[in-house]
């Protein structure tokens, strides 16, 4: 069901600022505050892709993903970071979310927007002079609530099939 929600310049600017604000929370480790931006029916999925021939319908694998979270498991990840034992991110990575090519369209429900954006995520850890870069496209559903938006759904389609970072411990 598509509605005739009009996408105004003001809407695009609000969504852009929402995404930039979200990126800032993630890059400054404010995961609790980030959870406040997430809807309770969250679906957060990083599909698994494989190299297929062009004639294949899709390169996205059915039945398996790289990450498949809901609100409870996201809260678990945040709680984990708050223990003294989250070694994968303690000391924390330094990260930078570069969010571009933002495209805003009407969502399936009247109070929702379908937002696509490109993501370049830079990650470096420790004193080693190397870094990881993840590139992908995000497909978000933002739900309008009083005073802003909540992230109801995110699909992050990464561009690598063999992923060049040692874990997906960062929220994309």
């Amino acid at each position, binding site marked *: 069901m598509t509605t005739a929600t009009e996408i105004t310049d003001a809407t695009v600017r609000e969504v852009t600022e929402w995404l930039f604000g979200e990126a800032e929370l993630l890059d400054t480790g404010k995961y609790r505050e980030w959870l406040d931006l997430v809807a309770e029916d969250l679906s957060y999925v*990083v599909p*698994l892709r*494989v*190299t*297929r*021939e062009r004639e*294949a319908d899709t390169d996205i*694998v*059915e*039945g*398996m*993903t*790289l*990450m*498949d*979270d*809901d609100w*409870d*498991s996201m*809260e*678990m*990840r945040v*709680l*984990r970071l708050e*223990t*003294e*034992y*989250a*070694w*994968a*991110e303690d000391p924390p990575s330094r990260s930078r979310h570069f969010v571009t090519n933002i495209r805003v369209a009407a969502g399936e429900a009247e109070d929702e927007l379908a937002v696509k954006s490109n993501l370049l995520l830079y990650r470096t850890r420790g004193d*080693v002079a190397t870094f990881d870069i993840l590139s992908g496209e995000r497909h978000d559903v933002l739900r309008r609530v009083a005073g802003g938006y909540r992230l109801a759904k995110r699909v992050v389609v990464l561009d690598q*099939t*063999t*992923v*060049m*970072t*040692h*874990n*997906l*411990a960062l929220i994309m």
Partner: protein
Amino acid sequence: MLRDELRQILEKGLRDVEADWTVPAAIINDPEMHDAERERVFGRSWVFLAHESEIPERGDYVVRYISEDQFIVCRDEDGEVRGHLNSCRHRGMQVCRAEMGNASHFRCPYHGWTYNNKGSLVGVPAGREAYGNKLDKSLWQLKPVPKLGTYKGLVFGCLDPDAPSLDDYLGDMKFYLDIVLDRSDAGLQVVGAPQRWVVDANWKLGADNFIGDAYHTMMTHRSMVELGLAPPDPKFALYGEHVHTEHGHGLGIIGPPPGIPLPEFLGMPENIVEQLQRRLSPEQVEVFRPVAFIHGTVFPNLSIGNFLMSKDHVSPPTSFLTLRLWHPIGPDKMEIMSFFLVEKEAPDWYKEESYQAYVRTFGISGAFEQDDAENWRSITRVLGAQYAKKMELNYQMGRGVYEPDPDWPGPGKAFPMDYAEANQRNFMEYWMQLMVTDPASHTGNGKVSDEAAAEALARAEA
């Protein structure tokens, strides 16, 4: 040939692992060790390629690796599983450049030589003009993997044509593999495809961890205990049996911590429990009944995890089964391939719960597994340096604490507690034996038989 310095390190290592229960740090991150390991370990061992359920139909294929060599593992037109070197016999071009798919033929993009999925060369463009029709196509089929074998759905390949059979190679480990692989009539299904990712760590750290390192869970995975995804006892992985077999294989079989009741048979669905009690031997059923965690490694680089774990901090635990391949791509780099498997006949609710428990705790984003990669990266970096390489690493856990368990109903050498390093020593000892055993061209003996390994050990001890 092994350089003398490497040989000395390894021969001393073989003496030390027996006498002092230590292992030379130099085996972890060293380019020359890695070069030697390619031929001496990966050139001789049976290496996991795929699960049969990944290629159920004729023509289905996946591309997989043994060391750097890549093979098309496919089901041919007659339904037989085959492994072809993914390299054209004309100039060596990859004839298949997708990771998976279905094809009756593989056509080389360079000049168009075309092979069927049995590996036979069936088409040579302009054969009349270019070769006068004199090219004997039967001599130029895709190179087969020298040995291919299947055990309970697992497809292995081996580059050494003189290697022992897969059945002999797996030996007593089969008793334990059955408990994981053979619980149901219709068998297991790999769901989707494996996750693949790269970690700056030596592959042996993954193999060593999974074969016996229950001890690390107390510290590394403490966050999971704090949050209630793992049983509420930081020492939860202590309460088990620690078992190894010949050829470097081993595993840990962990039950519930005292006073913390967990469901029998990993809480698997009723229909599977009914089937497994019929399919497995009474000894296997006895071993499996109290299990909450199984972790193990089939030498060299295939590990198994069968765990009872919650998918988040508010849900009850569900079991899941994962296979993972620690694929070496350098002395300090591996690719991890992580597979999720589930019994084909399990009810849908269990398949879904099991998938969620797996993907949220294990694999690339798994909240449990994340912390392992951190350790292995750090170790690899530190042990690549000249002074660090001269250390001995301590493999002395359990020394003088407990003896082999005489009452254990399964084969292999068993210890009554999983805080142990006997499996790890057994793995490293076998690895070092392979490393010091010269290949056929040097000894006139192409087999890394048990005798050759024993000879190498005797030389080392002399």
